[in-house]
Structure formats: structure tokens, C-alpha cells
């Protein structure tokens, strides 16, 4: 079942339930509790927004978030894996242009054994846009069989754009697999040249490569209608930008 949420503040998903949520209008703060064995797919699309999201995952819960953020804003994410065997995926795409500024802070806390977290954050920043991504993963000393991964990648679409990545890994346990990485770069001149030799002009080529970059996240949205809406929104966010 797909539900469209508007300005929801507290959301509790009953044990064993499977739900898909789409959110476009958000209040300042949302809290979500994903009950034992429940499976939630959560899609968020927003522009110019300050917001915090707190998610708690109980035993064997699966929570999958894909957020597309455009424009200004302070976003704070907190994912608390409190139940054994919980799995949290929290992907973010951000698109900035002109003089837009955004700060994205994310904390993933592995507070139970056998918990898994995956996070892929991808941004495209043009104009004089400025983005900061602070990504934390916390693993307490007594937790076992933890598997965490965080990747941040950003494209600078103009020479005045800037992106800063601040990873914060606090790993006190031994029985841990944890990978993280951040890469900030520009469009590849060889790829642009290849596209142009086929007759595609500079701006179309830049657009095609930038959307392809962001679509690594957006293409994983299972529902075609939602996927196309998100992809279209990303393209709009990139207009006059690439």
C-alpha cells in the first residue's frame, strides 16, 4: 500500500507491516518508529526546507529512505537501530544552484547486534551553491556483527560551487564491517567529448551526465510513477545549472 503523508509528526508502523510512504509536505520534525519485522519504504521530495527526521528501528525492521532535496535548508537525520537484525538504508540526493546553501547532518547509530546500515548521498551543486554533508556512524563497544557503509559523492557544476564533506565515524566495537568514502569532483572531460562527437551539445551533454550521476540513487525507486516524478524533479532542479 502506498500512502501520501502531509505534515506528519509521529508515525508508528506496526510490527510485521509493509508500507510505502511518499512525503512532499513536511513539518519541522518527523519521528518514525518501525516496529518489529516491519518493512517501510519512504520517499521524500522537498525544496527549501529546515527539517529533522528521527527514525527508530526495532528488531528485524527494514527501513529504506530515498530523499531528494532541492535548494536551501538544514536537514538533520537520525537513524537509531535499536533492535537486533534491523536494516536501514538512507539515501539522499541534493541539488543546489544559484546562491543556495544546505547543510545535511546524518547520524546512524548501531545500538543492537547484527544491524546493517547503507547510505549513499549524491549531490550536484552549481552556481555559487554551497553544501555541507556531515555523516556519522556510531557503533558502541559491546555490539557484534555490525555492517555499516556510507558513501558521499558530489559533482561541482561550476567553479564557484563548493561542497564539504565531514565524516564522523565512532567505532568502539571489533566485530564490525564498516566502509565509508567521499569524493567531490567535476564532470569528466573525456565523457563530455565522447557525447559531443555524437552531435550532443555542451549543455545537453552536461545535463545527461549529471542526471545519470544522480540517477544511481533515483533509479532504485521501485515504483515507476514515483521514480519518474523524482527524476523529473531532479532535472528541474538542474535547469539553468549545468
Amino acid at each position, binding site marked *: 500500500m502506498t500512502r501520501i503523508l502531509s505534515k506528519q509528526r509521529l508515525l508508528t508502523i506496526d510490527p510485521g507491516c509493509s508500507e510505502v510512504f511518499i512525503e512532499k509536505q513536511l513539518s519541522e520534525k518527523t519521528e518514525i518508529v518501525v516496529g518489529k519485522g516491519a518493512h517501510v519504504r519512504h520517499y521524500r521530495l522537498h525544496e527549501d526546507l529546515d527539517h529533522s527526521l528521527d527514525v527508530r528501528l526495532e528488531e528485524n525492521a527494514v527501513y529504506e529512505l530515498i530523499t531528494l532535496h532541492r535548494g536551501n535548508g538544514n536537514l538533520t537525520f537520525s537513524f537509531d537501530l535499536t533492535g537486533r537484525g534491523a536494516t536501514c538504508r538512507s539515501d539522499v540526493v541534493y541539488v543546489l544552484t544559484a546562491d543556495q546553501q544546505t547543510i545535511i547532518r546524518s547520524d546512524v547509530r548501531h545500538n543492537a547486534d547484527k544491524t546493517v546500515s547503507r547510505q549513499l548521498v549524491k549531490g550536484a551543486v552549481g552556481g555559487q551553491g554551497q553544501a555541507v554533508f556531515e555523516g556519522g556512524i556510531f557503533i558502541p563497544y559491546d555490539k557484534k556483527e555490525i555492517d555499516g557503509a556510507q558513501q558521499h559523492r558530489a559533482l561541482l557544476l561550476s567553479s564557484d560551487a563548493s561542497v564539504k564533506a565531514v565524516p564522523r565515524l565512532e567505532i568502539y566495537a571489533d566485530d564490525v564491517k564498516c566502509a565509508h568514502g567521499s569524493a567531490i569532483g567535476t564532470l569528466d572531460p*573525456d*565523457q563530455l*567529448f*565522447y*557525447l*559531443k*562527437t*555524437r*552531435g*550532443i*551539445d*555542451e549543455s*545537453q551533454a552536461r545535463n*545527461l*551526465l549529471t*542526471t*545519470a*550521476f544522480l*540517477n*544511481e540513487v533515483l*533509479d532504485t525507486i521501485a515504483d515507476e510513477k514515483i521514480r519518474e516524478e523524482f527524476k523529473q524533479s531532479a532535472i528541474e532542479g538542474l535547469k539553468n545549472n549545468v
Partner: protein
Amino acid sequence: MSAWLEIKDLTVKVGDKPILNGLSLSVNAGEVHVIMGPNGSGKSTLSNVLCGDEHYKVTGGFIDFKEKNLLEMSVEERARAGIFLAFQHPIELPGVSMATFMKYALNARRKAAGEKELDAVSFMKRIKVRAQALGISDEMLKRPVNVGFSGGERKRLETFQMAVLEPDFCILDEMDSGLDVDAVKVAGNGVKIMRSPDRSFLVISHNIKFLKEQIVPDKIHVLVHGRIVANGGMELLDEIDQNGYAAFQKEAVA
């Protein structure tokens, strides 16, 4: 009538290093020309200059294509005018499917020509027919361009792009290199299918068997130290096969 492609006294540098030193060449409509020469003689430089690669600085001479100054045109304008380079090392485009790539490329041409964009049905028809002829599966069209494909598959996908875009002037830069016997035949077949009185080819290759059996060129040019030092027909292939480039290199120095 002047030639389709007319290159006259072309000199090209990369950084401060001269690569082409007064190269002249003319190719008429419908002709297949081959450029041979030892490594480092400037063969790939020539193909990249024809496409408009900015790494190469043209310091003298001219290139006319269909009586227009090619050197004044941007990379994409040259492509739309009908120049196509099959890359020696095709570039990977993660996240871009071959189908999307070709849609952008075709529509860019149509837009420049003041035509309407292709509708989805005509587009699919156009690429499916050509994919089938070249043994390219639907799955290959959906996968990101050149990502995770073998050398042979990449070259086949270059041939496919050429078939979809129907360029007037095809430059094939070592399209047979690194391919097994069967893949070389597929590449050669692609050229055979495409051959027409309205289309010319400039083929760069070291593979004499490939040139003799698959390409069957009209003219052969030997490039040494950035200049054409010999022009001829198929008999040049036998000469090179037997004696290598030594004799030509002496000529170039003298």
C-alpha cells in the same frame, strides 16, 4: 568538383611537440581510404583533429569538409555535419544507457536541422533493426554505455552507433585491434553494410588481413613522421606486409 574531405598542409602540435608536419589528403564521396604507418606517426592525432579534440593544436593548413571549413566548427557541429569517429578506446558512461545516448544524439541532430524530435516508436524501430543486424541484444541497449563490456562488444557498440547515426564520413581508429577472429569479421561486416556511394571511410589499422578481406579499400596512404609519404592501392598492403615501413621511413627522412 573538389573532394568531400580536403586536408591541405596540415600541421598539428600537442603541447610544444609537432605531430603532423604538412599532411595532405583528399577523400571523395563513397571512397574508402586507409591510413597505415608505424606507431607514433600521427594516425590517431589525425582522427582526433578531424573530430575537434582540443588537446591538439592546429598550427597550419586547412581541412574542408563538403566545402566548409571544418576547423571553425565545434565538436558537435562536426558530428552533425556528418563526421563520425569510432573510438579506439570507447569511453564509459555510467548511468547512461545506449538507448538514451542514441536518443539524445539523434534528437540533437534533428533539432539542429530544424526537424521534430523522433517519436518513441520510430526511435525504437530505428535502433532495434540495427541492433539485430549487429547481434546486439536488448539487454546491451539497456546497460550503461561501455560499462563492463568486453573489447569486442565495445567495438561492436561503436559500429552500432555508426549505423544508428548514419554519418557521411566515418573514421575508424583501429576498430579491429584487440579483437578475436570472429569479432574482426563482425566489425568488418558492419563496414560492408554501411558502405554506400554517399558515405566515405577513413580506416586506421595495422591489420593487413582485415584490410584486405574485410575493408577492401580504394586507396591506401602511408603516414610517417606526420606526413603522407606514399599513396597507392592494394599493392601497397603487400609491400608493407613483406618489408614493413623501413623503406618509407628512409623516404620521410630524405
